[in-house]
């Protein structure tokens, strides 16, 4: 853990301030070029369909140009911040928890991270509102505003709880070294069983809810946590054991949302 830090520090000392500024500029330019490359496919697809297939001019060309520049800048900053901030924080906390050796606090942290990052997730709020509309149309709940709001809120907390539980199970798996496929097969069986039991209207929403729960900030943090835990524990391979937390977080909400559909 400490080895790369010292080499980095000595390198900066050697190159001095001038070289550092040059290296930083070069790195930023390279990062900008990478963001441009990442974004090129979207621009190409939209241009192709707009000009060749739909044969229409681009409305608001100015907005489009400004927006694209913002997206490129945003992506560049995000990736830099990831390497500077989110990854090191996630891994450092994983090492600290491993050193502390308290299973309870590690699992509490895992649950809070899953629950807390999901409950305020905008994509989930949108899906929960739509689900309430489906339920009201299907006659499962009253069509009134309050009934819908409470249904949506219940769904949101259900999904957040499911994600919290998923991270707890995933962290336990890393600690114990259980092979991931058996847990995933169990999860799949749960999804199939619930599909059979749940009302038809909820199924599409339930399947989608698995995909929307993991936000752009949660993913790097949770990934770094998993990889950090797997590398701090002896006998675990970070490649085999470190990944997989996100997989659980996208599986459990499906089961829980269908369960919610059955109960309500």
């Amino acid at each position, binding site marked *: 853990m400490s080895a790369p830090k010292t080499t980095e520090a000595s390198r900066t000392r050697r190159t001095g301030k001038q070289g550092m500024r040059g290296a930083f500029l070069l790195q930023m330019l390279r990062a900008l070029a990478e963001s441009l490359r990442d974004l090129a*496919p*979207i621009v*190409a697809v*939209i241009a*192709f*369909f*707009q000009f060749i*297939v739909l044969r229409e001019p681009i*409305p*608001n060309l100015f*907005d*489009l140009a400004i*927006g*694209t*520049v*913002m997206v490129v*800048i*945003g*992506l*560049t*900053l*995000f*990736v830099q*911040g*990831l390497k*500077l*901030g*989110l*990854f*090191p*924080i996630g891994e*450092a906390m994983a090492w*600290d928890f491993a050193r*502390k050796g308290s299973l309870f606090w590690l699992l509490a942290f895992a649950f*809070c*991270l899953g629950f*807390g*990052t999901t409950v*305020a997730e905008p994509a989930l709020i949108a899906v929960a509102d739509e689900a309430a509309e489906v339920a009201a*149309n299907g006659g499962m709940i009253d069509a009134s505003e309050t009934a819908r709001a409470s249904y949506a809120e219940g769904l949101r907390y259900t999904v957040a709880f499911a994600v919290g539980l998923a991270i707890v199970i995933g962290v336990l798996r890393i600690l114990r070294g259980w092979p*991931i496929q058996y847990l995933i097969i169990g999860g799949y069986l749960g*999804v*199939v069983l619930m*599909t059979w039991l749940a009302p038809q209207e909820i199924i*599409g929403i339930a399947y*989608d809810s698995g*995909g*929307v729960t*993991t936000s*752009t*900030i949660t*993913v*790097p*943090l949770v*990934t*770094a946590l998993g*990889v950090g835990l797997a590398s701090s524990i002896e006998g675990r391979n970070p*490649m085999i054991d*470190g*990944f997989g937390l996100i997989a659980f977080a996208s599986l459990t909400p499906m089961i829980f949302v269908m369960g919610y559909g059955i109960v309500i």
Partner: protein
Amino acid sequence: MDSICVFEHIVPICGTVDDVLPILAILVGFQVLVLRRPIPNLGRALTGFALVLLGLAFFIQGLETALFPLGKLMAAQLTAPEFLGLVGDQAERRPHWQAYLWVYAFAFAIGFATTIAEPSLIAVAIKANQVSAGAIGTWGLRIAVAIGVAVGIALGAYRIVSGTPLHYYIITGYVVVLIQTAFAPRTIIALAYDSGGVTTSTVTVPLVAALGLGLSSNIPGRNPLLDGFGLIAFASLFPIMSLMAYAQLSELFARFNHRRSAKHKET
């Protein structure tokens, strides 16, 4: 829920601040109260966190001013009966699924392109590259996942057009994933399962949801509230298959090359 931020309409960063505050509270709370250890390189970490916040705010604001309106407009135009050449009488009857070929092409292309730009996938690819000591290339991983999402969304669009039940596809997909799991190299399995959840995020979800909504509201007999869902589920299932297939293929190639070079040495 109301925004905590007062200047929401002036500063675009506020939306992201609302998303990030709970995460920050949990991290700081556990660090200070439970771990009671100083964060190494605190200044660097804070700068990184601020950069992530600022970057995401720019990213999302940019998407909302540029790409989302146009992408959503295109999804609506491509699925409109006028564009598909279904006029009057023909639109009333159930059009043949082949009338929608451009829609499938759009679904495929936009699925691929948005996945390449997805920040969370970039994050996981960087991490996988680090952990595997370069054995898994960031670019190969992202292209494999993007092809999976592209195929998934195209198939999902076909499902909405043809009106077949969602769970048949998903359950079949699960069976394929399980069979692949038995044969795929062990090191890729957890990463492949993760890739399913990672792909559907900031860039992909709004555009794909617009496509599903456009399709299901323009096809007679489809209810947007019931049939518009499900595209995201396809987009999270198919990358699992494509990533495992990619790993299997590259292992196969490696073995083939190895054998060929061995034979070369013999002769």
